[in-house]
């Protein structure tokens, strides 16, 4: 592939959503919906092309962007989840507009912001420079703040405030970490690395970085990007924001945004491992993983709100990712990446389902929803399967990734990872029990009899059904065979474990 083509391909995942955003500002609702799907498809296609190129020919640096296996893979995740969200969004928006909860102008703005959000995430995964990566991640906060606060209700405003304050503070810590890393890089022995915060350069320079400074920087970076990734201790914005944002946006935030931020931690880890040895980041990540899992378990046990339940489940899965990353090694890292994709697909389906349930019942409280299987068989089946998939049941790919993480933890060197895995599994069981209990209450049982019980149509809107089925099917297929993605994941894992 020629350089200009490559440059165009590399810029496309940013440019296409940005253009779509601009287009949404002027286009009608129907056109915007089609554009959204087209945009997601384009991102997915470009990601596939880049992935193939990267697998065959190694990483490419072009126009300040760096396309390696990890960024190509993350683009796949963005495209896939965006596809689910884009298919489901029009029906959701239409229902909101019909119900009078959403002004048409706000709906239009939502389209603009969502695509700007996609563009920002694309920049974040493609950035060659960690500073640019930081800017892009912070940009996602700003863009999504209005999506979270879109409802203008007390809850929405409150969620938006907490979201912006906590995330910006957290990400500010990451900025301090970058500053310190830059400091360390500036004083690295000459000739060992590149310049400034260029990731590839930092990786090369890493063995020469001052350990004292790098330690502080890494702590700040993990904590800071961890905030945006929904890892404890700065996780608390997540349930608020995800429960208040419109369902398709929640799907995107939970499905990709967290993962994009987590990929930043993965990139930092490469540098830190080379500079400090693998033990340091492992301790940090295992700690964060266990605390996140414990927090998720504590709050899921007596959860009363199903959207928050899904949000805490995201914290759980981020904890599992941190666990896998903490264990380290090519196998665990590959598992982490597969988990990112699987979780993105399934969680977006779950949020789409939760959004539909909320529209039908007018409540997000678990105890007010009853007998969904009886009243809404399709919706209930898809949501139920999504929750089961989130618990790591086959045939969905989360089974494979969780299994591989556990396998790596128990086979790895040192008992720390093994014990962490055992404790984590205990918490996962508790979380599973809690989620099963809550979901079971909503889905099972006879149809509720009461006013308005029979008013809603039994069938899902076609587009919602397609979105949910597609997401679940993709996750299931991925659990049986990853096809060409397996190669990409292997390459990405190799990128992240320092191997060439």
């Amino acid at each position, binding site marked *: 592939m020629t350089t200009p083509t490559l440059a165009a391909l590399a810029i496309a995942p940013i440019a296409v959503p940005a253009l779509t955003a601009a287009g949404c500002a002027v286009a009608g609702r129907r056109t915007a919906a089609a554009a959204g799907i087209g945009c997601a498809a384009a991102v997915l296609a470009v990601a596939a092309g880049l992935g193939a190129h990267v697998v065959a020919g190694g990483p490419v640096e072009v126009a300040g962007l760096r396309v390696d296996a990890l960024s190509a893979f993350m683009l796949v995740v963005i495209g896939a989840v965006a596809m689910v969200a884009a298919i489901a969004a029009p029906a959701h928006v239409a229902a909101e507009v019909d119900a009078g909860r959403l002004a048409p102008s706000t709906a239009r703005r939502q389209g603009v912001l969502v695509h700007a959000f996609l563009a920002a995430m694309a920049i974040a995964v493609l950035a060659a*420079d960690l*500073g*640019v990566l*930081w*800017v892009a991640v*912070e*940009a996602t*906060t*700003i863009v999504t*703040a*209005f999506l979270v*606060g879109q409802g*203008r*209700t*007390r*809850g929405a*405003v*409150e*969620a*938006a*405030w*907490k979201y*912006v*304050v906590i995330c*910006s*503070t957290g990400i*500010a810590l990451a*900025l*301090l970490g*970058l*500053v*310190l890393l*830059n*400091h*360390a890089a*500036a*004083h690295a022995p000459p000739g060992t690395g590149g310049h*400034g*915060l260029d990731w590839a350069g930092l990786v090369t320079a890493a063995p020469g970085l*001052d350990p*004292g*400074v790098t*330690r*502080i920087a890494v702590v700040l970076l993990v904590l800071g990007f961890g905030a945006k990734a929904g890892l404890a201790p700065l996780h608390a914005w997540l*349930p*608020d924001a995800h*429960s*208040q944002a419109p369902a398709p946006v929640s799907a995107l935030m939970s499905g990709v945004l967290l993962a994009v931020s987590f990929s930043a931690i993965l990139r930092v880890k490469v540098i830190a491992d080379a500079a400090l040895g693998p033990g340091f980041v492992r301790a940090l990540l295992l700690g964060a993983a266990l605390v996140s899992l414990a927090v998720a378990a504590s*709050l899921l046990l*007596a*959860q*009363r*709100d199903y959207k*928050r339940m899904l949000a805490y489940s995201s914290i759980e899965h981020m904890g599992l990712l941190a666990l896998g990353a903490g264990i380290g090694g090519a196998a665990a890292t590959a598992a982490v990446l597969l988990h990112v994709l699987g979780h993105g697909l399934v969680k977006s389906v779950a949020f789409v389902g939760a959004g539909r349930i909320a529209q039908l019942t007018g409540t997000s409280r678990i105890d007010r929803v009853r007998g969904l299987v009886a009243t809404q068989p399709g919706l209930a089946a898809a949501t139920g399967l999504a929750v089961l998939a989130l618990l790591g049941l086959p045939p969905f790919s989360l089974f494979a990734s969780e299994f591989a993480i556990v396998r790596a933890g128990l086979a790895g060197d040192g008992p720390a990872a093994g014990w962490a895995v055992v404790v984590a599994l205990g918490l996962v069981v508790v979380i599973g029990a809690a989620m099963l209990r809550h979901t079971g209450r909503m889905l099972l049982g006879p149809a509720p009899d009461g006013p308005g019980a029979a008013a809603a149509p039994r069938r899902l809107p076609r587009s919602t059904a397609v979105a949910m089925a597609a997401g679940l099917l993709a996750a299931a297929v991925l659990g049986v065979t990853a096809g060409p993605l397996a190669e990409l994941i292997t390459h990405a894992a190799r990128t992240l474990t320092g191997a060439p």
Partner: protein
Amino acid sequence: MEPVVMSPPAAALLDVAAGALLLTAVLVVWRRDLPTILRIFTAHGLALGALVGVLAWAQRSVELGLVTIGVLAVRGGLLPWLLRRALAGAGPARREVRPVVNVTASLLAVAALVLLAFSVSVPLVELGESPATRAVPVAVAVVLIGLLVLVTRRHTISQLVGFLLVDNGITAAGFLTTSGIGLVVEVGVALDVLLAVLVLQVLAGRIRDTFGDVDLGELRELRDR
């Protein structure tokens, strides 16, 4: 990057600016009257600008001089102005009435945080020792103090101030260690911070509209308990 060679007067000026940075940060914790806090915050921004200016002068760097102007304009002018406007729109409450932790305890905490910042920063100072890096602990301390303000203050504007203190501290740290982290990133960071503040300002207005108050302690709609 070669270590910054700095003349003694420049070093002294740098120390003064750094001292002012820390002092104003402490004062923000100390005072409860919001207009006063905003004035102190303006001073804080100006001190940051001065610090960058000293660095520019010491390095004889025109580029850094231009950055100084930018920093002064944004940190000493635009952001305080935005905050003042927000405060004007925030209704009658002009005092931080009931901080989550009272002022005395906060000041003691500040002392502890400064000590922590200084001891943590030892490796930062040791790596490429220079007058500039010797001031890095101050920047770290400012970050921690800013976080303390964020954690303990209830007024929307106070929390914004805390956030900006953190940011100023980080900016200071950036300039003191390596004279910045690249222009694109620098501008991006500044833009992001500015946008974040704008967003928060808008949200602060909405909070007042929907909750009828600017006390962040009232934001308890979304909770599990």
